[in-house]
């Protein structure tokens, strides 16, 4: 697989290293001269100097034959343009973009640049996972697949408290995939009996939150 990474900061360089270890072909495009020099000493000819939002720079990097374009600069407007140019000008099938400011997520969504990764959002969902303020926490969104993975605490006296996994009145388009009890997670078994304090991980189509809360969180 040939991957072009635009933006050779910590994220871009580490993604590059990981892909190389997996045996893939990689180019890293970097616009800052001093950062480029550092990258070149490590990645040699795989580091390319230039503004990755310029079409000729991407062309020289071989974007037309790339399987993946990874837009991870520190500027969201740049990552959006890189994503649009890679997909619509060069026909790259897989585009992954970094969202630096979570307030810009809606622009990526509106302009069809997906999937995206946002460090702030990831950290917030980790905090929610570790220190839940709500009994339902979104762990991960598969935007393109239209699926959410979320964690829900089983509240005492709810319909789920004391029920078996296969006895739960789960709405269509939802599935319990694991149960976490006393910090040990297990893949959900149909016969597992749930108890208050358990955390269940559910995969669901969007918009099922309130139906799930009815089962797990309402006393």
């Amino acid at each position, binding site marked *: 697989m040939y991957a072009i990474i635009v933006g050779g900061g910590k994220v871009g360089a580490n993604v590059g290293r990981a892909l190389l270890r997996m045996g893939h072909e990689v180019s890293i495009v970097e616009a800052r001269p001093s950062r480029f020099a550092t990258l070149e000493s490590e990645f040699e000819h795989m580091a390319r100097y230039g503004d990755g*939002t*310029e*079409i*000729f720079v991407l062309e020289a990097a071989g974007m037309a034959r790339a399987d993946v374009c990874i837009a991870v600069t520190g*500027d*969201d*407007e*740049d990552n*959006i*343009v890189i994503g*649009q*140019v890679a997909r*619509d*000008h060069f026909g790259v099938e897989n585009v992954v973009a970094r969202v630096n*400011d979570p*307030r*810009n997520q*809606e*622009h990526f969504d*509106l*302009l069809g640049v997906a999937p995206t990764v946002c460090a702030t959002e990831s950290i917030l969902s980790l905090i929610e996972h570790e220190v839940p303020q709500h009994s339902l926490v979104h762990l991960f969104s598969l935007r393109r697949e239209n699926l959410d993975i979320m964690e829900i605490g089983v509240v005492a006296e709810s319909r789920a408290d004391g029920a078996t996994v296969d006895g739960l009145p789960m709405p269509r388009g939802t599935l319990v995939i694991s149960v976490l009890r006393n910090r040990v997670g297990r893949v959900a078994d149909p016969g597992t009996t749930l108890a208050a304090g358990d955390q269940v991980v559910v995969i669901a189509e969007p918009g099922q939150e309130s139906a799930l809360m009815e089962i797990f969180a309402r006393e």
Partner: protein
Amino acid sequence: MFVVVVGCGRVGAQVARALVDDGHDVNVIDQNAEALQRLGSDFPGEFVQGVALETTVLEAAGIERADAFVAATNGDNTNVVIAQVARDRYQVECVIVRVLDPARARFYEERGLVTVCPTRTAIDRMAGALRDFAATAGEGA
């Protein structure tokens, strides 16, 4: 009509002034508060200081009721992103975007944006003037 202009540099400020002189309502956005001076003390529209990628800033400038939108910051990528946001999210009827890089200007023009590319204009004018000179001066020049 009501127009929102983003970027109050030489271009944005003069476009805003020209529209006001024609009797239109114009609000201006720039991230730098000092840019307001370019509009002159008698500018009747509102000036909003902020980053135009933020929808709260666009909305404070009245984008939801805008008939036209001009993206003229000094960042090509900012301009093409906010122009698409104006068109696709706020359904602004007329969106005009300044793009300095001719290749990117052509790409976004193909995607339906009305782009103005000063670099392309300069290239055409300069090359045209030189061609005119070469034609009148004959083969010796």
